[in-house]
């Protein structure tokens, strides 16, 4: 029999099994700081305001988390978002009812994600280069389809998902919550979740365990396409228009949220909860710096520094040498 390895201190265990706790700590510290410098930060109004602003990125970041957990990356989210927006808006302007426009938008996202998935899972091409390419293609399609003009004048019935509210909570926040819960349940309570984590941890091991890894890679990218579409539709409903040049650079925000949330960029370790925290960290940052009336140039600098700080705080769990 082998000797039991000496049990390491409780809190070490806690952190290594809940990497997001430290991200949460960072977020709380940040909020504390904001509280001190701006009296307006901690008003219910402003907080729901922040939540609404965060939703766009948070929804995309949910799909991004899944992809990154599998050890991949999806740089195409911004363009996919734009394409879904324009297609659904276009269809509605062509007379389609809101629900159909919605379906078309979501369909577009799913299709684009699936294409990424097939190229990565079945053609076994590197994710970063595939999605680098699909960063161009949907954007091109969106611009081509709209001629660069925003698709405006959507039917009022479409306004609800972006501007309406359920039980007093604004829809974007509700939808963000729903997407987040769905992803959490999927990753935590279903076997699929283990496979997705496993892919990032040791792909070959998962394959040898008798899992059809291709399917689950495909799933991951499809979901990422879907969340990009959802985020896009919420946005286009808030704007009541489809934007062919929306979402430029969103992939970086999403990745930042994921990694700030304590998910390993190499995959295998991390959590959806962390990502939500990460997204809020970024949101609070933007909001707070605006409230403080910091000049835009200085904002960039501070934002960078604070991200470094946050990740540094978060990194203490990893110093395990």
């Amino acid at each position, binding site marked *: 029999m082998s000797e039991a390895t000496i049990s390491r201190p409780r809190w070490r265990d806690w952190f290594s099994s809940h990497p997001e706790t430290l991200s949460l700590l960072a977020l709380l510290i940040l909020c504390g700081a904001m509280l001190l410098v701006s009296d*307006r930060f901690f008003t219910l109004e402003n907080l729901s305001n922040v939540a*609404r602003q965060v939703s766009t990125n948070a929804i995309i970041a949910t799909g991004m988390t899944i992809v990154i957990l599998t050890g991949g990356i999806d740089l195409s989210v911004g363009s996919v978002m734009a394409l879904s927006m324009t297609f659904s808006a276009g269809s509605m302007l062509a007379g389609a009812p809101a629900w159909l426009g919605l379906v078309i938008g979501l369909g577009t996202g799913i299709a684009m994600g699936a294409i990424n998935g097939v190229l990565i899972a079945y053609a076994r091409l590197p994710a970063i280069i595939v999605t680098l390419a699909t960063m161009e293609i949907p954007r091109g399609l969106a611009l081509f389809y709209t001629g660069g003009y925003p698709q405006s004048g959507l039917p009022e019935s479409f306004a609800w998902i972006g501007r309406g509210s359920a039980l007093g909570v604004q829809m974007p926040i509700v939808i963000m919550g729903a997407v987040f819960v769905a992803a959490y349940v999927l990753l935590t309570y279903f076997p699929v979740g283990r496979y997705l984590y496993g892919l990032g941890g040791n792909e070959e091991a998962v394959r040898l365990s008798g899992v059809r890894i291709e399917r689950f890679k495909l799933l991951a990218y499809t979901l990422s396409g879907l969340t990009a579409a959802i985020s896009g539709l919420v946005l286009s409903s808030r*704007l009541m228009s489809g934007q062919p040049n929306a*979402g430029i650079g969103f992939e970086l925000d999403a990745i930042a949220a994921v990694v700030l949330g304590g998910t390993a960029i190499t995959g295998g370790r991390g959590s959806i909860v962390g990502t939500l925290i990460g997204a809020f960290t970024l949101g609070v940052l933007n909001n707070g710096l*605006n409230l403080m*009336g910091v000049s*835009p140039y200085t904002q960039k600098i501070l934002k960078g520094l604070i991200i470094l700080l946050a990740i540094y705080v978060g990194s203490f769990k990893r110093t395990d040498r």
Partner: protein
Amino acid sequence: KRAASEGKGGGKARALRIGMSFQELDNPYFAVMKQAFDEAGTSIGAEMFVTDARHDLTKQISDIEDLVQRKVDILLLNPTDSVGVEGAVREAKKAGVVVIAVDAQANGPVDAFVGSKNYDAGFLAGEQLSKVLEGKGEVAILDGIPVVPILERVRGFKAAIAKSPGIKLVDTQNGRQERSVALTVTENMIQSHPDLKGLFSVNDGGALGALSAIEASGKNIALVSVDGLAEVVGAVQKGQVFKATVAQFPRDQVRIALGIGLAKYWGASVPKEIPIDVKLLTAENAKGFAW
């Protein structure tokens, strides 16, 4: 900290709060606007807030929301997308903020729009180019970010050259209004169209990239553009490659917008649109012009 100390609105009359949301700030045209804005603001002792949307509509919406949170009394809005900002404009109005659109029109209940006549700008540039080319020759467009003002300029330019049948539009490429990008794009256009005679750039930033490319190629291609950037004015005076730029008046746009905004804030009823004329600058009249 400033925000903390002056935060409480009630009691003694607090300084006027004025916010301006820019579509971008890493471009001299808007940097000048910011300057004018800061000067004007300080001269009336107002508290100023500036945000930069980096051409990201979502960020601009957030910026506006944050400025409303900050309880600004007047909001100068330079929309990155005229339609997209509508929702945010409504929010602002609901919060009782005076909203003035600057440089580009914004949908929704804005109190006034102060901006250049972009169609005219494109048209004047077009006319001048065909004049320089004596009504014949191949021309190309160095396009930019697809937002209404830019699209308007292109529309105006096309309308102008359409009047002289000898002018042939052979190419349209996107220089993203950015100098280094415009440089390569122009180089390629020169390559693909050996007898290109004229080029219209939708803004001066891109035009300067094009200028480097044309000069390097040693070809004789007439360049016209829109804005009136100091560097360009200099080039126009030389009058070799850079034939003309159609000047806008960013400082005046901001000053007038601010004035209108104040008037509205004090209760005056103000005109819905204040179009600012643009001015064609050529070798003759360019001297001494500055924003």
